[in-house]
């Protein structure tokens, strides 16, 4: 594939450059792998081996034991497996939904031109805020929604017309990514109240909804760049042949952007798989996910490093397996779109 080095200069210089590349790559690989090796070693230690100083090689300078693994899988059993199942279900479901909605939205932003009027948008926001305030003042919600809808239509017809500024696709995209700015700490109380009202606390549904909403902007942003790089000609041909937009998207655009989809899937999955703060507040027992189990090993007697190491290891194994399978697609895919603008 891409060979950034000129092909012609094969000689001592080339060999030297290649050697230097390997040295640099191996150095970083060591920096990445050593902490993971340390996790593995720690998971095989008794507490005494952890506290009496650094030991590096099992069987050589300490006697390995599977007691931490046994504790996690036998003693805790359901307290490990239930969060594990929750993590898998929540991450896969939310990532699937995010990818579907995000890819369609990104395609819309890449191929259509949207011109929402600022006045209409402001009126809509005002109406939603009125509905929310009315709802929190114990106005029955059908009345609140009806009132807000009336207000929106009225406002758009009168005051909304006075603000003729039209927004564009870039503004929509920026608004989306700006939804990731507010830190979860600030959002978590309102979200908690929201799901409490909906009686969805401690359910996987609440987590899936949260992760879809928080990861959508990222997926839209990444996939938009990707779609923009696809040649339009193929889609135009299909349109001339009478295929609908939906058909074009489903049978031409999605298959030809598989690399980008796969890479974005991996990013979104990693974010949902590892999320901690929302899970901490929205779940208590039934819907708990694994990051909470890891943090819970920080007991009153200090962090239980050996249990933590086991949990971190079993948590990354599925993602690593997925990365190995998907790596070949990533390499040719992600974000090429922006290259062509």
């Amino acid at each position, binding site marked *: 594939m891409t060979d950034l080095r000129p092909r012609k200069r094969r000689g001592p210089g080339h060999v030297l450059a290649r050697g230097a*590349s390997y040295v640099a790559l191996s150095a970083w690989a060591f920096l990445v792998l050593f902490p993971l090796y340390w996790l593995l070693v720690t998971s095989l230690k008794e507490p005494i081996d952890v506290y009496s100083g650094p030991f590096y090689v099992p069987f050589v300078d300490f006697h390995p034991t599977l007691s931490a693994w046994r504790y996690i899988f036998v003693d805790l059993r359901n307290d490990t497996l239930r969060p594990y199942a929750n993590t898998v279900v929540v991450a896969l479901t939310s990532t699937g939904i995010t990818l579907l909605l995000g890819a369609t939205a990104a395609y819309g932003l890449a191929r259509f031109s949207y011109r929402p009027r600022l006045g209409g948008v402001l009126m809509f926001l005002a109406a939603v805020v009125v509905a929310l305030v009315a709802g929190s003042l114990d106005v029955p919600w059908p009345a609140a929604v009806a009132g807000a809808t009336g207000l929106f239509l009225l406002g758009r017809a009168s005051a909304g017309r006075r603000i003729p500024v039209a927004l564009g696709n870039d503004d929509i995209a920026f608004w989306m990514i700006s*939804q990731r700015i507010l830190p979860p700490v600030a959002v978590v109380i309102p979200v908690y109240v929201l799901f409490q009202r909906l009686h969805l606390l401690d359910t996987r549904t609440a987590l899936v909804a949260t992760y879809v909403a928080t990861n959508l902007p990222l997926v839209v942003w990444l996939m938009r760049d990707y779609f923009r790089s696809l040649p339009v000609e193929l889609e135009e041909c299909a349109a001339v042949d009478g295929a609908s937009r939906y058909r074009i998207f489903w049978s031409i655009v999605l298959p030809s952007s598989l690399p980008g989809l796969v890479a974005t899937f991996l990013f979104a999955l990693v974010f949902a798989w590892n999320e*901690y703060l929302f899970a901490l507040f929205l779940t208590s027992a039934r819907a708990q996910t694994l990051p909470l189990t890891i943090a819970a090993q920080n007991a009153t007697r200090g962090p239980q490093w050996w249990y933590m190491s086991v949990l971190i290891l079993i*948590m990354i194994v599925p993602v690593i397996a997925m990365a190995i399978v998907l*790596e070949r697609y990533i390499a040719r895919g992600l974000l090429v779109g922006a290259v062509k603008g």
Partner: protein
Amino acid sequence: MPAHPRGPSLAGTGLELPSPLARLRRETSALLDRLAPTAFLGPAVLIVLLFSLFPLVLSLYISLVQLQFVPGGFHLSVVGLRNYLTLLVGSDRQEFLGALARPSPAGWAVLAGELALLLLWLGRAAQARVGPRGLLGRGAVAVLLGAAGWLLVHTLAPGGRPGSLVVTLVYVGAGVSVQYLLGLGLALLCAQSLPGRRFFRVVFLLPMMITPVGVAYLFRMLTDTSKGPFYPLWKLLGLSNFSWVNDPWGARIAVLIGDTWQWTPFIFIVLLAALESLPQEPVEAAVVDGASGWQVFRSITLPGILPVSSTVILIRMIEAFKIVDLPNVLTSGGPGTATESLTLHAYVIWRALDIGGSAAIAYLLLLVVTILAVAYVQLVHRRALEAAS
């Protein structure tokens, strides 16, 4: 556009007369196609809007109230902007903005240089006949950058102490630039046709896969100077009794190392994908013309990956402003509040039940990052896209 009837072709079967059913079908498909833009973008916009608007409004309200415990429950009393004033000029100023000290001559020189550059930039924009909106925006950016420079110089001077705002700026500035340079270097290395590069690619992705809480605990193990794996190194340096996490800059660097370890892979993989998709012909032509490796990189490769770089830096910048797990677990924000980021600051006073103050910090963070992000998109991202097209 789709005027052709769909379904099994009727041509040649003697049934060309438009049946009512066929007309209905045609009209439905025309309607569906007209609705396509809304159908594609609508659901995502609606979900993000509904999910973000309620928290945005409610946390704005929370930032204007104070939580008080009264017999039988709690009471929210509206205090107006007092939560914000507490952070900016009141009792929390030391933790938020930091302690000011008189800058050294070098500090003054840096500040004067920065202000001169900002004025020069504004002057050039005025000469280039930028519109009034552009001038206003640039003015706001200049004021923000100038204030940030003033704060940095005053709190990082000897005797001063940076608050959570300055510490976060250091994390974002230093972290994102180091991560970008490392990620770019690794991506360039991996884009060569070296045997075994698939191994390196998968390995380099690994740190991103670990949950941030896990990474934080992992680095707490690794940075332990008496039981951690680098004990022999510390002993050799005579530092075995020294906990570098007790030294303010040592602790901040520990947080930065953890952050870099975890997030360099994100930049790496995005840039690698961009490099792989660059067309090869210009590079080959340049090599035939006798261009050096550096010249090829400087004038072909770098412009080609500029838009992607710009996007990935924007995303990383937004995420880096929210750093919380690493300083929380690794150093508990300490020593003192030396490693406290804005989000951790909000979290700490949130745990102390000052939810109004916590929301106020979040809103100030939102303000700063939004202005920076708008400026970035308008001044950098757009230009990067233009440069590549």
